[in-house]
């Protein structure tokens, strides 16, 4: 067993050396051979990428996200309802039936509450 971890340790050490040595060499290179020369292109926001061409703070309709997030919540609940649906009423133990009813109660409550809060209406 100890041999396994010894090998792993050696592997880890080598895996660390490989990136660190070139980084160190690059740092030395930068220090000694290439002094900094800032210029217009070098100072650009994305030196090698596309300039953004319009304001980044776009406006978007927050209401869509509300719908989507509420959908997400109910979507996840469906995952738990699925075994219940697949078991059928005959095979399900009483405990399971009761617990799924409680679960559904919470689900209905959150639906009623969200409805009454006006989340489900497009304004």
């Amino acid at each position, binding site marked *: 067993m100890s041999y396994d971890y010894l090998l792993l340790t050696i592997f880890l050490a080598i895996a660390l050396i490989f990136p660190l040595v070139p980084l160190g060499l690059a740092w030395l290179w930068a220090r000694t051979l290439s002094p900094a020369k800032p210029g217009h292109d070098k100072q650009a926001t994305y030196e090698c990428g596309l300039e953004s061409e319009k304001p980044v703070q776009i406006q978007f309709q927050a209401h869509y996200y509300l719908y989507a997030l509420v959908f997400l919540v109910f979507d996840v609940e469906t995952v738990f309802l699925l075994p219940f649906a*697949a078991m059928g009423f005959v095979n399900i133990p009483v405990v399971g039936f009761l617990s799924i009813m409680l679960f559904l109660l919470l689900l209905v409550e959150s639906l009623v509450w969200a409805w009454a809060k006006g989340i489900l209406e497009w304004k």
Partner: protein
Amino acid sequence: MSPILFWIFSALMLGFGAATILNRNPVASALSLVVSFLGLAALFFGLDANFIGVIQILVYAGAVMVLFIFIIMLLDLKAEQRRQINIPALLGGVAIVVAFTAQLVTVIRSYKAGNEPFAAITPNLPDAHNIGMTLFANYNLPFQVIGVLILVASIGVVVLSQRELK
């Protein structure tokens, strides 16, 4: 599952997987990914893994995709459409894929277990039923608590993102 269906769904999955990458329009990419997920789900159904198949559709094609579309809308990705194809990068990518596939094939060929047929899958295993039994019998309390937790989540969504009444 008949082999013909398997090939059809695999082709669907791989084809739309490729379309996800090749499409310039992020929304079209995302929708291709949905179709790819559906093909994968069909493969699961073919293996009698119904529960995982349904989860694949509900969670990946449903919830995860909604999040993807979120991000796409939030970031307003348009720049991707104008990007030129970089020929050397493309060739390099193809070379790596070919090398990887070749390696995979050789390893599987030489690896003994890779040449043996799979053990037969028990047909018509009631997987959703079994999961349900475990969930309701052994993990009843965590299940209930998660129900409450989801109620917290839905309250949190509304409270944090509903527009303030001025």
